[in-house]
């Protein structure tokens, strides 16, 4: 990792609304070259919205996003098209095209953006499938794969063009611990072997602690914390501690008062009965 290289991602004061509701409230963050940045936060914290903005799938109300030195908001369609060739995305659902085989899915970016002959593309697909431990699965359809295999196939498609920037949306969501750990190892391998800058959106603490160089914690559309895993663990903020201890903020809710609010009557609970 070098500090002299330009940042892979720079986000300045990003604000976005859905209708009247403000989803991101002046988010600023950066990702260094060759760094794994994990974006964490509870449901509704705005991490998926931030991801969609980083992927240039949505335009913010205000603020700027620079990807690989280019201001996404000021890019022409052609510039964005060129920029996207340097990005890879593994979606939470995999987003593999169900009408295509695994091999065809992975080959699609090569087919669309290069003039390589079919034989060479097939070799490259096999190489990437080796990287994600799916060698020999290129002839299967996505419906024939398990959840973990779909995520790995999606990862193979995301890295087929050897992107400089890789985005992974909830890579370990819904997977068993063994498969989840294997995916974490894969992300680390990709960073080490290919020098990619990787952004991972997750709420799996174990996974985040294993792979992150730095962690950004989002809460209610605001950045709560940016720093290393050790800095996060040492953070004193109650909201961060709640996140780390998987504790809802209203765990210390007064149950009697809550029931009274619901029923309109005073309710007395006898825990002993």
């Amino acid at each position, binding site marked *: 990792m070098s500090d002299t290289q330009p940042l892979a991602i720079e986000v300045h004061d990003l604000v976005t609304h859905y209708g009247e509701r403000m989803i991101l409230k002046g988010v600023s963050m950066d990702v260094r070259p060759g760094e794994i940045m994990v974006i964490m936060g509870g449901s509704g914290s705005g991490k998926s919205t931030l991801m969609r903005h980083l992927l240039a799938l949505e335009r913010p109300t205000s603020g700027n996003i620079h990807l690989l030195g280019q201001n996404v908001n000021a890019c022409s369609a052609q510039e964005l098209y060129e920029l996207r060739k340097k*990005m890879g995305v593994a979606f939470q659902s995999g*987003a593999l095209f169900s009408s295509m085989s695994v091999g065809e899915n992975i080959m*699609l*970016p090569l087919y669309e*953006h290069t003039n390589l002959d079919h034989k060479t593309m097939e070799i490259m697909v096999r190489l990437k499938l080796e990287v994600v431990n799916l060698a020999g699965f290129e002839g299967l359809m996505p419906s024939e794969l398990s959840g973990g295999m779909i995520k790995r196939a999606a990862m193979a498609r995301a890295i087929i063009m050897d992107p400089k920037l890789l985005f992974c949306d909830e890579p370990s969501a819904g997977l068993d611990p063994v498969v989840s750990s294997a995916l974490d190892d894969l992300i680390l391998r990709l960073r080490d072997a290919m020098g990619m800058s990787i952004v991972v959106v997750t709420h799996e603490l174990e996974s985040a602690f294993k792979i992150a160089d730095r962690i950004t914690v989002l809460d209610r559309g605001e950045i709560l914390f940016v720093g290393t895993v050790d800095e996060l663990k040492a953070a004193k903020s109650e909201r961060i501690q709640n996140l780390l201890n998987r504790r809802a903020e209203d765990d210390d809710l007064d149950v009697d008062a809550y029931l009274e609010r619901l029923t309109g009557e005073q309710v007395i609970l006898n825990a002993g009965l």
Partner: protein
Amino acid sequence: MSEQAASGNPLTRLLERVGRGTVVGVEAIGFTCALFAEALFWLFVGWRRNQPVRMPALFEQMMDIGIYALPIVGVLSATIGMMLAIQGIYQLRQFGAESQVVVGIAFSVVREFGPLITGILVAGRSGSALAARLGTMKINQEVDALWVMGIMPVRFLVVPPLLAMVVMLPLLTFYSDLLGLFAGGLYVSADLGMSLTAYFDQVRDAITSGDLLHGITKSALFAVEIAMIGVANGASVTGGAEGVGKVTTRSVVHAISAIVITDMVFAFMATR
């Protein structure tokens, strides 16, 4: 009148509903037209921007829309042709003019029933499939995946079925015309003892190339409507599987309505 009072008045509520419905309808038509314009842009300019329409995708759609529809279009067209012959002979027999049935069959099949039946069948078969496919792809983030891979979704998902529809529907209509006429001829020859050669001689005398073109041109318009309505409905899906079901049904209803209305307008314009 206060807003609250206005919302309590049944007439105001009705007007409000009509107004909202009109806005939604106009928006949907605008969205469909914008998609169509974008599809034309990628069809003609895509290759210059390194985003050409891929032939394999086009042929795949042509097979789906055209070739695989041959059996059902054939069966229904033959049935319609025969039904026209049965009804025509029954009615004309009252005036002793059964032999004139050939003219009725020829005109009805070539100008109306061929394009209409084929259009409705393809709307139900391929238009709905298009809406369901696109809707499912949107929900599964496959459309987002195309964007982030630098592949324009309209060029990749809309242009091939649109082009395939515009090529295959007129061809299917021509095929439907032939089968409808042939089946009608079979019944006429059996009922009236007229040879098939004589029947087709009469058909040739009755219709002109203009009649044939009338039906074929209409079918090309139907093709654009079916494809764009399917695509626009699929692209506007919200929710999960239920949403896909809704847009699929809606696309069939919209496409068939559009076909019937266009047919009426076209018939009116072409007979002035």
